[in-house]
C-alpha cells in the first residue's frame, strides 16, 4: 500500500506555515497526527501535492488555563488530553470523550485539531466540545476569528476553514466544578473501538437536582454534531426526576436529523438517541461522575 507521490514541507513557525498555505493551500494537506490523512492518501481519497508536517510549530502545542478559560493547542494529542489533570479538573467531559477515541496507538498520535478538521461525522471530540460550548480560533495571514462548533461545520465532512487557514486554538470556558455534571455515552461500547453509531455528550448545571441549564450534544447520527435545543429548553428549571429525563430524551430524539449508513439506519439512530439521552440524563441525576473506566469495562 504505497502512498501517492507528494512534496513534503516542514515549516518551523506559524508565519512560515501561513505563508505557505497562502500560496499552496488549495493543493495541500496538513499532517498532524496523520491517523486520518495518511490512510486517506493510501486509499487515494485525498491526493495532495504538498503534505505539510506542522508538528515542529511549538505555538500550536500546550494546554493552559487562563483566567476563566482553557486554551488547548490543536497539536495536543488525544493521549495528552486523556491524561491532562487540568482538563480532568475543568472539563472532565473532554477527558472522557478522549479516552474512547480509536485505540491507544491512535490516541498516541492523533491530535484534537485533526479530529476537528477531518470533520468525520463519527468523531468523539466535536460533540463533547459542542456540549462544552467551545470556541475555535481560525487563523490566516489576514488575522483570526472565533467560531462555535455549530458554526464550524457546514456540511458532511465540510468545515468553514479556507485552504489558506489553520485551526490554531480551542478555547473552552472553564467551569466551577461544584454544580456541573457531565455524561458521555458512545455506542458501541466495545472493548475494541469501532466508529460510533451514536454519541451523546451532556453538560448539566444543577442544584439539589434541579436543572438550571443543560447542553445536550448528539454526534455520529448526522453529518455533524447537533444540539438538542428544544430538550435543553424543556429541562431548564425542572427537577431531573425519572419522568422529566425520559420526556427530555423524547424531545431530543424528535428534534434531530438522522442519516442511514453502513452502521445503522436513521430509524435505529432516532430510537437509540432517545435511549442514550435518557441514560445520560439519568446518570447526571444520579451523580455518576467521570465514568471512563466504568464504560470501558462494558466491552
Amino acid at each position, binding site marked *: *500500500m*504505497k*502512498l*501517492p*507521490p*507528494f*512534496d*513534503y*514541507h516542514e515549516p518551523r513557525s506559524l508565519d512560515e506555515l501561513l505563508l505557505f498555505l497562502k500560496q499552496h493551500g488549495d493543493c495541500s494537506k496538513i*499532517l498532524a497526527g*496523520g*491517523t486520518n490523512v*495518511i*490512510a486517506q492518501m*493510501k*486509499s487515494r481519497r485525498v491526493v495532495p501535492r504538498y*503534505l505539510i*508536517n506542522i*508538528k515542529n510549530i511549538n505555538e500550536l502545542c500546550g494546554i493552559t488555563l487562563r483566567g476563566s478559560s482553557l486554551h488547548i493547542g490543536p497539536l495536543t494529542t488525544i*493521549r495528552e488530553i486523556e491524561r491532562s489533570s487540568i482538563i480532568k479538573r475543568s472539563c472532565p467531559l473532554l477527558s472522557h470523550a478522549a479516552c474512547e477515541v*480509536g*485505540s*491507544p*496507538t*491512535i490516541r*498516541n*498520535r492523533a491530535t484534537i485539531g485533526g479530529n476537528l478538521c477531518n470533520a468525520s461525522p463519527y468523531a468523539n471530540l466535536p460533540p463533547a466540545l459542542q456540549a462544552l460550548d467551545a470556541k475555535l480560533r481560525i487563523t490566516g495571514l489576514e488575522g483570526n476569528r472565533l467560531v462555535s462548533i455549530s458554526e464550524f461545520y457546514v456540511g458532511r465532512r465540510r468545515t468553514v476553514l479556507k485552504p489558506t487557514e489553520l485551526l490554531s486554538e480551542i478555547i473552552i470556558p472553564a467551569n466551577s466544578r461544584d454544580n456541573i455534571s457531565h455524561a458521555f455515552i458512545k455506542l458501541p461500547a466495545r*472493548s*475494541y*473501538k469501532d466508529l460510533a453509531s451514536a454519541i451523546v455528550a451532556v453538560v448539566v448545571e444543577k442544584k439539589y437536582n434541579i436543572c438550571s441549564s443543560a447542553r445536550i450534544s448528539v454526534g455520529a447520527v448526522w453529518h455533524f454534531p447537533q444540539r438538542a435545543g428544544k430538550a435543553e429548553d424543556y429541562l431548564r428549571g425542572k427537577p431531573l426526576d425519572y419522568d422529566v429525563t425520559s420526556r427530555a430524551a423524547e424531545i431530543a430524539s424528535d428534534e434531530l436529523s438522522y442519516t442511514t449508513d453502513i452502521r445503522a439506519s436513521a430509524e435505529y439512530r432516532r430510537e437509540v438517541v432517545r435511549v442514550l439521552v435518557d441514560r445520560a440524563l439519568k446518570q447526571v441525576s444520579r451523580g455518576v461522575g467521570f465514568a471512563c*473506566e466504568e464504560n*470501558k*469495562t462494558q*466491552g
Partner: protein
Amino acid sequence: MRVKRIKLRVNGEERQFEAEVGLTLLEALRDKLGLISVKLGCGTGGCGACTVILNGMPVNSCITLAAEVDGAEVTTVEGLMMNGELHPLQQAFVENDALQCGFCTPGMLMAAKALLDERPNPSMEEIKEALSGNLCRCGCYPRIIRAVLQASREITLKGER
C-alpha cells in the same frame, strides 16, 4: 522535498538511510533496515499488526512517515531479546500458546511491552485496554492476556525490564 536522509535509533542502535518522503515507518523498518518482525496488516492503522514503540509510546507504523520521525527512538520485537534470551513476554507467549498463525503477535508483543514499561502490574482490564487496538483473527485473545499477566508477574519478581 521529495527525499530525506533519516536517522533513527532502532533497538538501541543508530541507523541511517535515505528514503522518499512517502515511505512509511513500517516500510522503512522492513525494507531499509531488515526488521521483518513488523507486519503489514490493514495498512490503515486499524489492526495493530504494525505496532512499534516510538519514543516510548506504541504507534501504528503503517500510518507514520519515516520522514516525520527523523531522530526518533524505535523498538521492535528484534529488540526484545536480551543476551540471547527471550524476553519474559516472548517466553510467556510461547508457554501460554498465545499464537496460532503468529501474524498479530509482533504487534501484540510491542503493545504489551509498552504497557508493562509504563505499568508493571496491570490488571486484566488494563491489559485488554492496552491491546484493544491489536486484532487477532485466530482468536487467541484469552491466552494472549494470560501471557501478558504472567510476564508482568515474572518481570516484577525478577526486578528486570
